[in-house]
């Protein structure tokens, strides 16, 4: 069945805005605890206890800043403990406003003094001041304490559910995106400006309402190609950090991470190799004169890279082997150049080194990503 054009347009646009689905999964992460809270509230129907919907949403925000479970749970615990103490103080001391202000000041000061959990503390204060408006007294204080305990339980459950459902999806999307960037980088630096280039992420970082001060540094670059590689490198540095740092508790996620981690490191290494061929265009004619097989090898490599990406993406077999004949011929040409007395430019040396490294790294990448197929 063919996808309607309008739907395809929307999907493409969304992919362009959010290539690794980080925003989509992040939004689900923020909505999920609220929804779980809503179902709990609908079941119990306890009057004025809508807090069990709102609190998990507020608690999950600061918890998301921590990659390890210990940090996440500590942040959740800190948020709910601060909130519980503050709301109880409000409920009990409401008849002594001056004492209430003093106690709130002390509690706020203690809570925000922790640099690590300050974000959680400010969210707790935000909720605690709304409690001042509600009905007060010992009974209500204890009632709300129970609500806070339920909300804490929902938050912890949501964090675990989130990991179980979305971790593999997130990792897979990130690896696919890095492969797209690798292909984009390779295509941009091995083709002249007049040639038609197929680029996956042409509008990298161009998002509505998004203001980025770090683009100012792009004044340093002379051509659009260099600006593009700068953006790709920024993505490479920032994307996928969670693969290294995030802690997983489910076996399937740990297993998948262990399987994908070498590929993730290799992708970064391939990028290092591609940056060596950054100035290929400047010396293209000279390289072709010294190493005539280069253009053929580049074409072949692009097909291989594209097929490796497609094989991983579609879970299908595509031919992913470099032609041995071309590779051997190119290696022979390099060897003969090495023993000759011809003075070779720096760019050509960079290119040869980078390309050799890339060939071996791509082989390694294929051995990791493709054996399952």
């Amino acid at each position, binding site marked *: 069945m063919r996808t309607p054009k309008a739907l395809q347009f929307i999907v493409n646009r969304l992919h362009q805005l959010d290539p690794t689905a980080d925003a989509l999964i992040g939004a689900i992460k923020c909505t999920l605890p609220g929804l779980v809270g809503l179902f709990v509230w609908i079941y119990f129907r306890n009057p004025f206890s809508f807090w069990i919907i709102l609190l998990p949403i507020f608690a999950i925000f600061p918890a998301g800043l921590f990659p390890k479970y210990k940090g996440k749970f500590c942040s959740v615990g800190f948020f709910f403990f601060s909130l519980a103490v503050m709301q109880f103080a409000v409920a009990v001391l409401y008849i002594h*406003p001056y004492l209430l202000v003093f106690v709130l000041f002390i509690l706020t000061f203690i809570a925000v003094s922790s640099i690590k959990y300050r974000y959680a503390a400010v969210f707790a204060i935000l909720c605690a001041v709304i409690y001042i408006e509600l009905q007060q007294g010992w009974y209500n204080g204890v009632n709300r304490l129970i609500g806070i305990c339920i909300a804490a339980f929902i938050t912890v459950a949501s964090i675990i559910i989130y990991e179980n459902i979305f971790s593999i999806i997130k990792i897979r999307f990130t690896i696919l995106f890095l492969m797209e960037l690798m292909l984009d980088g390779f295509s941009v630096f091995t083709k002249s400006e007049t040639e038609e280039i197929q680029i996956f992420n042409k509008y990298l970082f161009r998002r509505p309402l998004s203001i980025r001060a770090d683009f100012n540094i792009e004044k340093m670059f002379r051509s659009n190609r260099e600006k593009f590689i700068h953006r790709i490198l920024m993505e490479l540095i920032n994307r996928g950090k969670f693969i290294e740092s995030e802690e997983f508790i489910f076996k399937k996620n740990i297993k998948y991470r262990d399987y994908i981690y070498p590929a993730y490191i290799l992708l970064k290494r391939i990028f290092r190799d591609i940056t060596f061929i950054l100035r290929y265009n400047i010396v293209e004619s000279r390289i072709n004169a010294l190493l005539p097989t280069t253009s053929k090898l580049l074409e072949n490599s692009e097909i291989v890279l594209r097929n490796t990406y497609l094989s991983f993406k579609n879970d299908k077999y595509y031919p992913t082997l470099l032609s041995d004949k071309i590779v051997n011929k190119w290696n022979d040409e390099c060897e003969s150049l090495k023993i000759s007395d011809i003075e070779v430019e720096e760019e050509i040396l960079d290119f040869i080194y980078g390309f050799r490294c890339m060939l071996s790294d791509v082989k390694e990448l294929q051995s990791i990503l493709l054996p399952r197929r």
Partner: protein
Amino acid sequence: MHVIRCKRITVDITTQEVSIKMLKFTEKRLLNIQESFCISIAIAIGVIIYLVFKIEHGYWIPMTTSIMFLAADQGQGAFIKKTRDRVLGTITGALLGFLYVNIFMYANYHWGYMIPLLWFIGFYIYYVTSNYALLAVMITMFVPMLLAAFTSEPLGIGSTLFKRVVCTIIGVSIAIIAEYIIYRRAASTVLSMKKNTNDFFITLSKFIKMSSDHFIDKDAKPGLVIDDSILKCKNLNLLSNKVALKYKNMLQYFDGKTDSCSEELNLILQKIKTSEKFSPTYLFIRSLYVFSILADDLGSAVYRKNFEYKDFYIDDKRYLTEKIYK
């Protein structure tokens, strides 16, 4: 000389370095206490105004103040921009929330079921754009919507909205005044600029260190060294560590510090024969050299205060060639 023993590593540091670290630590703690005091005072003032003047829906004042401080851990500096975002976000969020309640939810309660979807869409847009104003819109917008869904108290668009907007403005003003008076350094961008610059160069230093660690593997790849008489693995390691350290302490170079790292690397480069230029080690040393001279030039340009972009075109072949073969 002090020897600090951690779980895995042993680091030697001088007494002077210890005292600098202690000073920095104390300064950091003082700033932290100052900021905590600022937040607590601002919220306490908001609560006092609410309780003393018995303002209807006055809890909106300390609530807005705390929303304003949500960006407190996102680093100080760029104060005006962040404040503008927060004020704009809070007021827009309150307006949108009240409009949704009055136009849709009071007309037909089924619109209340759309709240999770709106929440989802809002956060999706926020995560795509990373625009802080949108986060403030989202958080503020849902307070009136949830209040309307779960309480019997009517939220009129006229007087109630007006009162809350006034409370929002008071809350925002308290936060701004507190930040300006108590936590003055928040208004200065110098601190965060210094920190961010330092972070940037520390990241570069890590990259160089990481490349060296992967490249110079004493046991596995002894063949990488060009000629034992020119350079041993150990020396190469020392040199790359020197360049990494240079980037790590870049701020000191901005204050006029110099070293002989570039000269040492240049001497090694000159000793390498033309036929050995195919070796990856040559390329590695050359890259280290380029990094080193870039750091020297950048450091001296900042020190002399005559920095210009055109001095530092990354891919200016002439610039690099001149520097390498001078």
